[in-house]
C-alpha cells in the first residue's frame, strides 16, 4: 500500500463508496482530487475557462463511471489523474487540430521545446521534488516526457519537434519515467 500523501488510502475507499451512489463520499473525494485534477488539466490545456470546463467534465465522469474503478489495478488517485490527463490531452489536441498549420509552424520555431513549469506556489514540496528530479534527467529524456505529458503531444509529434527517430523518443520516454521513479523514491 502506498503512503498516505494526499490521502491515497482514503481515496480508494471513497471511490468505491461513490460507485454505490454515495453523495457524501463524492464530496469528500472532491476535496481530495479536485486540486490535482484542476492543476493538471490547467497545465495541459492552459486556457483557464477551458481548464475549468474540462475539470468539471472529469469530475462528473468520476461520478458517472466510478463503478469502473478496480482497486486491484492501481490507486484511485492514479485512476482519476489518468482520466483527467486523457481528457485534457484530448481537448488540447482537438484545439490544436483546429489551429492553422502555418501558425503552428511559426509557434514551433519560436517556442522553446521545454516550456517553463508555471510559477505556482501551491503544491510546494511535491513540485520542488518533481522539478529537481526532472532536472536530473538528460535533456532529451526530460523533453520527451514533458512535451508528451504536460503539453499533450503524441510521441510522433515529439519526435518531429526534437528531430529524433521514433524509436529514440519511445526509449527516452521510458528511461525518463523510470529515472523519475528512482529519483522520487519509487513506490514510496
Amino acid at each position, binding site marked *: 500500500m502506498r503512503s498516505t500523501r*494526499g490521502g491515497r488510502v482514503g481515496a480508494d475507499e471513497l471511490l468505491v463508496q461513490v*460507485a454505490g*451512489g454515495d*453523495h457524501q463520499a*463524492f*464530496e469528500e473525494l*472532491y476535496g481530495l482530487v*479536485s*486540486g*490535482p485534477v*484542476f*492543476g*493538471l488539466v*490547467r*497545465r495541459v490545456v492552459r486556457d483557464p475557462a477551458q481548464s*475549468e470546463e474540462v*475539470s*468539471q467534465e472529469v469530475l*462528473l465522469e468520476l*461520478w*458517472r*463511471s*466510478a*463503478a*469502473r474503478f478496480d482497486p486491484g489495478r*492501481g490507486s484511485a*488517485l*492514479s485512476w482519476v*489523474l*489518468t482520466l483527467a*490527463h*486523457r481528457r485534457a*490531452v484530448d481537448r488540447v489536441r482537438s484545439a490544436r487540430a483546429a489551429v492553422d498549420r502555418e501558425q503552428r509552424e511559426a509557434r514551433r520555431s519560436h517556442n522553446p521545446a521545454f516550456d517553463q513549469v508555471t510559477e*505556482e506556489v*501551491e*503544491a510546494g514540496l*511535491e*513540485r520542488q*521534488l*518533481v522539478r529537481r528530479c526532472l532536472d536530473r534527467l538528460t535533456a532529451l529524456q526530460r523533453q520527451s*516526457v*514533458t512535451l*508528451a*505529458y*504536460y503539453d*499533450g*503531444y*503524441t*510521441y*510522433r509529434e515529439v519526435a518531429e519537434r526534437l528531430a529524433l527517430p521514433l*524509436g529514440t*523518443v*519511445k526509449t527516452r*520516454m*521510458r528511461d*525518463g*519515467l*523510470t529515472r*523519475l*521513479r528512482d529519483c522520487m523514491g519509487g513506490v514510496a
Partner: protein
Amino acid sequence: MSILARLFRRGDLHSLAAPYALDALEPDERRRFEKHLKKCEPCAFEVRALAEDAVRLAWSEAAQPPFAMRDRVLSAIRSTPQEPGPLREHAREQTREYTPRLPAHVWGTEPAASRARAPQRRPFFVPFATATATAALVVASLFAVQANQTQDKLKAEQAQAREIAHVLAAPDARATTGADTQGRSIGVIASAAEGRAVVTLSGYDALPSGHVHQLWLMRPNVQPRSLGLFKGDTPLVTTGLDKSATSLAVTVEPDGGSPQPTTQPVVQLALKSVGFGE
C-alpha cells in the same frame, strides 16, 4: 504493408508502453495497444508502473480550483445518473417496488408545512454562482440524456436548452429549492414577469415502467393544472404560469400523465419566494 513490416510492428508494440502511459499515442495506436495489453500480462504490469510514474508529474501541478466549481460539480452530480458496474448491479437486485416515501399531505392551495430543509426558506435573487450552478446541473442532465439519442431528439433537447437559457436570462429570474428528508430535491428557476420556469428533480429513483413524474401548478381554489411530464432527469420548462400560482407539486402518474392528480404528491414547493402567489 509487407509481412516484415507487420512483424516488426507487432514486436514494436511493447515499446509503446511508455508513450501509452503518457497518453502520447494516436487514437488508432492506442486502440491497438490496448488490445495487445489484454493479452500481455507483463505489458499491463509495466504500463501500470509507468502510469503511476506519470501521475507523479500530475501531483506537482495541483492547484486550487475556482471555488464556484465545487458547487457546480456537486449540484450537477445530483442529476447525473451513474453507470452500472458490478456493485451497482448488485444493488439493483435489492431494489424494491417503488413506493412514494414522502408523507402524505392533503392536496390544497397551500404547500405542505415545510418538511424541506432550510434552503426552501431562503429565497434569493439568483446570484451568478447559483445561476451557473443550476445551468451546470441542467447542462449535465441534458448531456447525460443526450448520450444515446437520435438526431431528432437532440434537436428537441437543443430547443429546450435555448428555452432554459431564456428563463435564466430573465432579469427577474429567481431560484428556490426544496428537499425532503432523504435529500431528494426539486429545484425551480422562475421568472414571474415571463411566467416561465425551469424545474428539475433530482435524487428520485427511476420509476418502474408505466409510470411518470407529473408536474402540477397549484393555485388557490382551483384544481391543479398539469405543467407536463418529466422525462428522466431532463429539466422541465414550463410557460404560461400566472402570478396567482402558489406552489408546484409532483406526483407519480401512469404513463402519459393524468388530467388530475391520482396520487399524493412526492414533493411540493412554494413559489412565493420566486415572485408568485400574488
